[in-house]
């Protein structure tokens, strides 16, 4: 399973995707994507970044070809990251923050 050798063609395809996605996210940041009072620019930027990260993890880091145990452990890591970010934000978004430290 670990001896799977990925073809350089796949690496080049992933590389091309990553570079073009970088250009897309760069361009998207200069376009106003807000509709109905909601600004979708950060949503698009993070979706592109997430997609790029998944491409790197699956192909450059060979996770697509690794054992199930490794896959589960990595998934657990991201679940913990999600808990860290979401519970932090639940707390901070539901309380008033002190104003600027300089005031």
């Amino acid at each position, binding site marked *: 399973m670990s001896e799977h*050798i990925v073809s*350089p063609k796949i690496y080049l395809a992933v*590389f091309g995707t990553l570079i073009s996605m*970088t250009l897309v996210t760069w361009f998207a940041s200069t376009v106003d994507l807000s509709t109905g009072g909601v600004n979708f620019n950060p949503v698009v*930027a993070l979706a592109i970044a997430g997609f*790029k990260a998944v491409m*790197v993890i699956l192909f450059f880091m060979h996770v697509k070809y690794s054992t199930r145990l490794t896959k589960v452990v990595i998934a657990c890591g991201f679940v913990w990251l999600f808990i860290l970010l979401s519970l932090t*934000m639940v707390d*901070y978004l539901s309380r008033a*923050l002190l104003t600027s430290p300089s005031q």
Partner: protein
Amino acid sequence: MLQHHFADMEQQKDASSLGMWVFLITEIMFFGGMFAAYLVYRYNFYDAFVAGSTSLNVWIGGINTCVLIVSSLTMAMAVHSAQLGRQRALVIYLVLTLIFGFTFLGLKAVEYHAKYVEHHIPGQHFKFDKYEDMSGKEVESHVDQGQSQIFFSLYFALTGMHAMHMVVGAGLLTTLILMSLAGKFNASYYTPVENIGLYWHFVDIVWIFLFPLLYLINRVHHV
């Protein structure tokens, strides 16, 4: 090469890459804490974050993103060469990866120097009243100085820790180059190449998130 507590080479290799991933997960949580701080302050001090973000050099940031992606490709090709036992190609790809790593750090140094000249480094002499936008036009800024200091503190903490990981990665790559020149790797043993490759790709992923979060918060409206 096979240690006595493993059944075969495959199990040994799977165990080592699992161990590397457990380490990388601690790294994800380490950067995750800083990303959480970033989210909290970005939500509360949005205008200051937009102004600070727009003052960053998006050209250097974007080119650096591409440089890191190229270095990830050469690192992946180094692992590929190691798997096939191609010693010369392995050394060449490792050296290329190291060169792109230093290119990234060099461009980062240029950016830090520009921020130093502009007094945008948090501290006693911090002053954020004007900055250059993407077209090089000078823009007046009226955002809160304390809130701007928080943006730049997070900018330097996040990019600084990322750059430190790059420096560590450069040291690891140098070790790999020396080891492969000494003929330590072959088609059945290249675990250090594979695991340092995982580390290098992880550092690339951190930057993939840092680029939009720091440089591209809002390039449409000026604050």
